[in-house]
């Protein structure tokens, strides 16, 4: 009989919170024998907006685009290594576009049962509902969402397990 969680996806954006979420997702995937995907979205939509708003010079756009590609590789490699430490295979997915739209697309295409996100802002603002990418993803995806909190506990679990 199939369990309720067969495929988990963790969203990695390079923040400390997302890396902790990755550790938790690895432990969870192993515990429930689920497949684990790790996704990094190169946020080209935001980059384009910054150029349109003339906050970025065109040379900066190219520079930051390269930086984000390097970040994607660095953090996805880190995620794969995190999984390997616990014997869990992580499929890294690098994509580009609008973060919440890309997460939605991959969740649909890959039939993800559970999205794992790092801790959100401590302060809630009406603006955050519209501007924060993780919050937008949390509200808009069709699958269940797990928000990983208590960084110390997760690190202890990961170290001791």
């Amino acid at each position, binding site marked *: 009989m199939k369990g309720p969680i067969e495929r988990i996806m963790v969203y990695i954006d390079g*923040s400390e919170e997302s890396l902790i979420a990755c550790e938790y997702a690895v432990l969870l995937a192993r515990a429930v024998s689920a497949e684990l995907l790790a996704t990094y979205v190169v946020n080209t939509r935001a980059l384009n907006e910054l150029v349109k708003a003339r*906050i970025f010079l065109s040379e900066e756009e190219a520079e930051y685009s390269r930086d984000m590609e390097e970040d994607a590789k660095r953090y996805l490699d880190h995620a794969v290594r995190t999984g390997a430490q616990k014997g869990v295979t992580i499929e890294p997915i690098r994509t580009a576009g609008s973060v919440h739209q890309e997460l939605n697309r991959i969740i649909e295409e890959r039939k993800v049962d559970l999205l794992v996100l790092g*801790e959100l802002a401590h302060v809630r603002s009406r603006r955050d509902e519209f501007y924060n990418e993780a919050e937008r993803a949390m509200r808009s995806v069709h699958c269940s969402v797990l928000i990983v909190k208590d960084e110390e506990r997760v690190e202890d679990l990961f170290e001791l397990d």
Partner: protein
Amino acid sequence: MALIDNITEQVIKVPLTETTKEGVLKELLQLLTATGKVQDETAALNALLERESRGSTGLENGVAIPHAKTDAVAGVLVAIGIAPQGIDFEAHDGQPSKAFFLILAPSDQSSAHIEALSEIARMTRSAAFLRTLIGSENPKEVVELIRD
């Protein structure tokens, strides 16, 4: 971490006392240094000045968003300054700048840096938000406005 978590009264100056571009950059940077999160203030200032030398970050409608990548910081940092009288920041529209959002980020956190810039860009598109922001009389009012 969302941008809003980084915005506290400690990193807001109302009104700014400096009246030149470099003075404003230093004044805002000092707010961040006082939080203990800037490891090398000179390196951070040089990164901001280098970015300004490539083109002003003074935008339109009284908004300036000076920003730079620097490994003098470990995470994305934001400071806000208000100058109701306006300061010549060589803005794109030639008008004095009144609301300043200074952002610093390390080179390995480009996504968070871009997301922070993007959040500020969206916030400042609202004329009503900008009017209220520039009319703020103290840091507390700025925090309340941003968290509204």
